[in-house]
């Protein structure tokens, strides 16, 4: 989105994390250990159900 405006920094992916501070918490998403891990919690790769 900013390639035309910046010289030394190129945005690869835009995160939505701040926007979810007020809209989140519905608890409909997957529980992290109910997947392929079972031994290590990583939430970054879970998907939002909304």
């Amino acid at each position: 989105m900013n390639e035309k405006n910046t010289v030394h920094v190129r945005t690869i992916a835009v995160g939505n994390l701040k926007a979810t501070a007020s809209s989140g918490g519905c608890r409909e998403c997957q529980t992290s250990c109910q997947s392929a891990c079972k031994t290590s919690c990583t939430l970054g790769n879970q998907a939002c159900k909304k």
Partner: protein
Amino acid sequence: MQEVGVELSLKRGRPSRAGIQRNWHRFGDAGARLLLDVQSGSLHSIDEAAWAVLEAMGAGADGGSRAGGGVELDGGQVQEVVRDLDTLIDQGVLSYPDERDADVGELGPGVLKAMCLHVAHDCDMRCGYCFAGTGGFGGARALMPAEVGMAALDLLFKASGHVGHLEVDFFGGEPLMNMDAVRRIVSHGQELERRSGKTLKFTLTTNVLGLTDEVGEFLNDNNIAVVLSLDGRAWVHDAVRRSADGGPTFARVAANALKFVNSRRGGEYYVRGTYTRRNLDFDKDVLFLADMGFETISFEPVVASPQSPYSIREQDLSQVFAAYDRLVQEMANRRRAGRGFRFFHFDLDVAHGPCLAKRLMGCGAGREYAAVTPEGRLYPCHQFVGRPGFDMGNVNDGITDTGIGAQFGEAHIYAKPACAQCWARFMCSGGCHANAHEMSGTLSEPYAVGCAITKKRLEAALALMAL
């Protein structure tokens, strides 16, 4: 030429070193130079000049800092980088480093929405690294009566309140040793779905040894996601994953897994391997599985005490990191060649990930997730089963000791000093409670080796997005 550090103030002022360290994660991985904006989750690729300026900016607020590596920049470049950073901040894709984290308000009590049913505290394999005590979890070998599993589902549907998406994993030991109960529990769950309008997703985690055509058909017909345990190369797998009579299992497991995956018709599955200090070059095992034809793969470090011959130790980390680096490069090569595959921990989607509230609380153990023993006792998760002090109740009476869940509720990322300042806090969410408790005896101190691996794995995943 001018000394970097002279003109490092943004429009909002010069950020503090602590703010930069906490909220702007600058790293190089697999040949990429990257900047993660921790608070938004946005990822940026930066050039050498931006790297040098950011390095100097993060070196301290005392001015006069030189860029590392002897890089010198002219004033024009410094100005350009600073202007870029201000532009990104204005666009909302970069946060000013001294901003506070967004406030999600009160997190409220947990709502039980996922269960791990230990349908068999028994196993037909004897894996050297098994955290379940080769099936029994330190207790007697037992199978879960179907009635216990059905009561667990009744509890789950009742306790989940307004939550519409529920999950149940059949786990063990080896769940295929108790398929009669699994079939009845699935049927009961489907009836509860119909009655309640909720959605119940089943998963089954298996060692694959007993995965017959008939079992596979049942799993496919009932849309049950499956996690298949297979550790990669035959010698790696067979060195640890032995049958109950001590024999090797790779040949049978690999054949069963391939046949089953080919029958899936699009159904969800993961082939899941465990790496130990005996195969620190586990990238070869991941690629071995991909070459076998598996398209969705997960690989995890072993959970083992520091005394175990399998455990990953601090001195092993450089080899672990190198394996992830090699894996990123090869996955990028294969993706470009149209031969890509999915690796669970590299599947980051920063635009559609979970909300901030979830990321503060982590896995939900003890609050949203519980494990059920064959006898119907409730524990915070599958790894806490049998640990003294973590018995939360039973399937008939529900959670009777709410203090345990409260303990987990208090173990959020801001309550853990190591997590509160960590750049990975919103992606890792505090790590595995069971590992923390196993290694440090407390929920509030994460397992340091696990942290190091998680951070590396996240960097690798982000790098793969950039390649």
